[in-house]
């Protein structure tokens, strides 16, 4: 493990660990959104070397794959733009003006792209094909993360400063409810007919009934629970915790929500991705690094990227069937 403390005094060195077969196809890539650098690091997942650095305007943070899987959109809130990339190669495909896009996601029926505009307190609904604004909700302060019900009836958005969870009806585009949820809610994930919401100002997650928004369960995961991810086999729920000294990634049983293991990870883990070899790629916000962790041992190596790495996309996710989101990895 290379820690930040070691990085202060030691030159960075990382041995490449081949983990993917050479098929002649473009190498699998990891794209890391460096919010503090206005860049996206494109990493060859095989060699773990940065092969390109793509510019954005100001502050790339999160990603969404278009339903046809042809374009990867990266949000740039400070630059008021969505940047488009080839999801296989990371090659740029242009950008579109969008007001303050932070976290974003396509509805499961592929009809809408919903964007949380954190700075402007908007939850914006755009038409998928035209990117035309269809509806704007002012549902609270600092809209943070969002998810949908699988039938595309409902959308849920955490309001970070208001301490609330907001839901609106996707068919009528009208508000359903807003409920207090805990201090500084962040990550939102639909799971087994319920919602999991990270409560960043507290020490864990809550399970919420999507019908009326009442809290059905609470589970401690660690201080500063920020975002939540479900592995592709629906076997492990991961929660990144990034407050108070030693930050960590918690692995939970997705049914019982019992914490199975906590991986201490220095440097503020944020978004994560899981590679086909089982390694977990983790953006470390405070460290300018991506950690590649073996979940069996908890050991990890790091790859140096830009300042404040935030969202992380692994192109290997394209081999999966069905809908792809940044939180179901």
């Amino acid at each position, binding site marked *: 493990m290379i820690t*930040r403390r070691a*990085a*202060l005094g030691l030159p960075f060195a990382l041995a490449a660990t081949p983990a993917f077969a050479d098929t002649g196809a473009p190498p699998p890539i990891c794209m890391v959104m460096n919010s*503090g*650098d*206005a*860049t996206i690091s494109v990493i060859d997942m095989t060699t773990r070397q940065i092969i390109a650095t793509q*510019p954005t*305007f*100001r502050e790339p943070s999160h990603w969404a794959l278009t339903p046809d899987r042809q374009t990867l959109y990266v949000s740039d809130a*400070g*630059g*008021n*733009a969505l940047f488009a990339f080839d999801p296989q190669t990371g090659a740029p495909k242009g*950008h579109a*003006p*969008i*007001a*303050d896009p932070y976290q974003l996601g396509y509805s499961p029926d592929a009809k809408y792209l919903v964007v949380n505009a*954190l*700075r*402007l*307190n*908007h939850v914006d609904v755009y038409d998928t094909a035209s990117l035309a604004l269809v509806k*704007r909700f*002012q549902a609270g*302060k*600092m809209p943070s993360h969002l998810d949908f019900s699988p039938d595309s009836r409902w959308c849920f958005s955490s309001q*970070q*400063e208001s301490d609330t969870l907001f839901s609106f009806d996707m068919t009528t585009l009208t508000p359903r409810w807003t409920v207090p949820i805990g*201090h*500084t809610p962040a990550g939102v994930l639909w799971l087994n007919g319920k919602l999991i919401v990270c409560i*960043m*100002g507290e020490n864990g997650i809550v399970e919420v009934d999507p019908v009326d928004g009442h809290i059905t369960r609470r589970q401690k995961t660690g*201080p*500063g629970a920020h975002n939540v991810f479900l592995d592709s086999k629906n076997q492990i729920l991961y929660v990144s915790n*990034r*407050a*108070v*000294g030693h*930050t960590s990634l918690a692995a939970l049983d997705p049914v019982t929500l019992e914490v199975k293991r906590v991986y201490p990870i220095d*440097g*503020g883990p944020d978004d994560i991705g899981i590679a086909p070899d089982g390694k977990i790629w983790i953006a470390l*916000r*405070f*460290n*300018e690094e991506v950690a590649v962790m073996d979940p069996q041992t908890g050991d990890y190596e790091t790859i140096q990227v*830009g*300042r*404040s790495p935030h969202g992380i996309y692994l192109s290997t996710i394209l081999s999966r069937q069905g809908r792809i989101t940044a939180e179901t990895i």
Partner: protein
Amino acid sequence: MLHSLDQFFSILAGYMDEYTVVPVLYHFHWMEWDELSFDWCLVCMYGLFAVIVTYAICWPLEHFFPIERWDNKSAVLVDVFYTFLNRVGVIPVITFLLFYQAQTCFTGWVVDLGYIPPTLDSLIPGLFGHPILTFWLYALLLDGADYWRHRLSHSFRAWYALHALHHAQRQMSFWSDDRNHIFDDFISFAWFFIIGLAIGIPPLQFPLLMLGLRFIESFSHANIRVNFGPLEWLVVSPRFHRLHHALRAAGRGSFNYAGVFSLWDVIFRTADFSPLYLPTGDAKAPEALATGSYLAQQICGAKMFFASLAKTFGLTGRKPA
């Protein structure tokens, strides 16, 4: 080298954020600011670095090549306090927090009208993907905007009542750059917010370049007998800026308003390249503004500001003759 230095400060800022700021945010349920706290820590780290570097360069120069020698430097101590308040991020963070909601509401309103604030690199073809060039263009334009903010602050009586605090210093040194009334700082913040709506925020990934620009502003106030020769037509030197702080230039009808690029004074015909090192200060300013404590200066400046406003709007309370 520069990249390593940049990375070193990022790592220190990361430590500061993770082990001091985030725990405080967490404890007080302020985690909604967690996204920004790293940036604040970077500002703080770079600010401290800037103070150290500025001191290391300017102090020996002021010691060996001074324009004036002072027996009592107590007035300079207050400027040191101003510098730390501003450079390590206290005033910028307070200003940001005070105006955050207003800024959000106003920007949201503008966006609701269908206007999406652009960036220079989205407006100018070919600029995107050249962040350093973009940075310099922003630096030039924002300095131009600051030229006009500064020039207007000398044009309106009430505004100058605030700005007089900056001019009142008779012992002008490299510490004097941040010596401003807090209301004046608020106006600057609002000014650049409006500019930001028009041309976007500059790229913030080059803190060392930003420090370089701030260094020029500090250096231009230094008590050093130096000029930049022909380069003075482009960059503000201590001699050039000292002319702006001279007794005869206080108040209205001043000159040499530029902060970094003297080019703006040349373009707008307010440049004075006289080869003189004149005494500084504002003869009309109350003594409290020149030698008072921080609080005394702030209170005096506020009183002058409100009195000037009242006079402007005929609210002085005096009965008509």
